């Protein structure tokens, strides 16, 4: 048996966590690009993956933050903003509300997911950050909100910021699973 010295962490945990996610995600996207011929299919798959993560993340979020029901969409936006801070370590601005108040954007100055990432020319149409859109859709579906989410601006494509748009579609009613009374 080899004696290992106990060391306190040498590294900046926050930075390491964030880079670990970035690199793991990058490796996954690279694998998908290899697997799937069509770039749009990769984008779609990433959204779906984000959705799966979102439906689990919301539980983690609610458990850790002890938040209650949202009053309105504005409140919801603020809470997602907190979630960004919790999971990605960045706080986006909430802005560009539509006149009807059913659509808004998250604006990120920096996006940890795309740190260390460069898109080659033949993948310029890839929606690399679709994971985030999927996560928002998945998380909100678990609290009975049906939304659409998509990327408007992307730093990977040379835009100044990353802008993620969210549009409220409808409130979901509690429905019994099929086949149950």
């Amino acid at each position, binding site marked *: *048996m*080899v004696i*290992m*010295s*106990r*060391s306190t*962490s*040498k*590294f900046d*945990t*926050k930075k*390491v*966590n*964030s*880079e*670990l*996610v970035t*690199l*793991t*995600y*990058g*490796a*996954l996207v*690279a*694998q*998908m690009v290899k*697997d799937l011929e069509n770039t749009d299919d990769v984008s779609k*798959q990433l959204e779906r*993956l984000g959705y*799966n*993560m979102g439906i*689990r*993340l919301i539980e*983690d979020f609610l458990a850790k933050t002890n938040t209650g029901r949202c009053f309105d969409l504005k409140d919801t936006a603020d809470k997602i903003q907190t979630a960004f*801070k*919790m*999971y*990605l*370590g960045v706080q986006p601005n909430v802005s560009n509300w539509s006149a009807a108040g059913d659509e808004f954007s998250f604006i990120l100055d920096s996006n940890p997911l795309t740190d260390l990432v460069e898109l080659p020319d033949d993948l310029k149409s890839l929606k690399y950050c679709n994971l985030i859109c999927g996560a928002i859709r998945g998380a909100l579906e678990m609290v009975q909100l049906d939304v659409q989410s998509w990327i408007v601006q992307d730093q990977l494509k040379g835009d100044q910021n990353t802008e993620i748009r969210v549009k409220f579609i409808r409130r979901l009613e509690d429905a019994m699973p099929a086949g149950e009374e």
Partner: protein
Amino acid sequence: MSDDALFDFLHSEIVNYVLERNQSQNKDAKDEDLSNIEYIGFSTGYRMIERLTKEMPRFKDELETMKFICTDFWSAIYKKQIDNLRTNHQGVYVLQDNAFKFLTRLSSGKQYLEVAPRYVSFTCGIIRGSLANLNINCLVTAEVQNMPSCKFHIQVQRT
């Protein structure tokens, strides 16, 4: 307030994605093909260690490198150290984690022993990738007998 729940969930999705993909590609394969999960781990480990060791002096020898993997590197990724490191001093190392992160969420009985390989492949890749970057070529396999404990066997390839 950074959080590693994200990494956990991302890892599960990688496992799901690769398995689903395999199923749609070759339905009648007998054994599960986990090589893509391992390869995603390899790429991650290869890049991760490069960033972590950027400012560090060169490791003295192979054993010191392994110790680094067991302590600092493991803590950086799994928030705990490897519990036990054994070696025959001839290129075989056994790293034992008594509560391996990706297995702690599964029942610790025998029920899910069969699917355990799915949840350790990524990490085999991480180890192989990080050592490859430090110029140690090796084979890494994992052995799970009692959940959530896991032993990683490293066999250094000398040419």
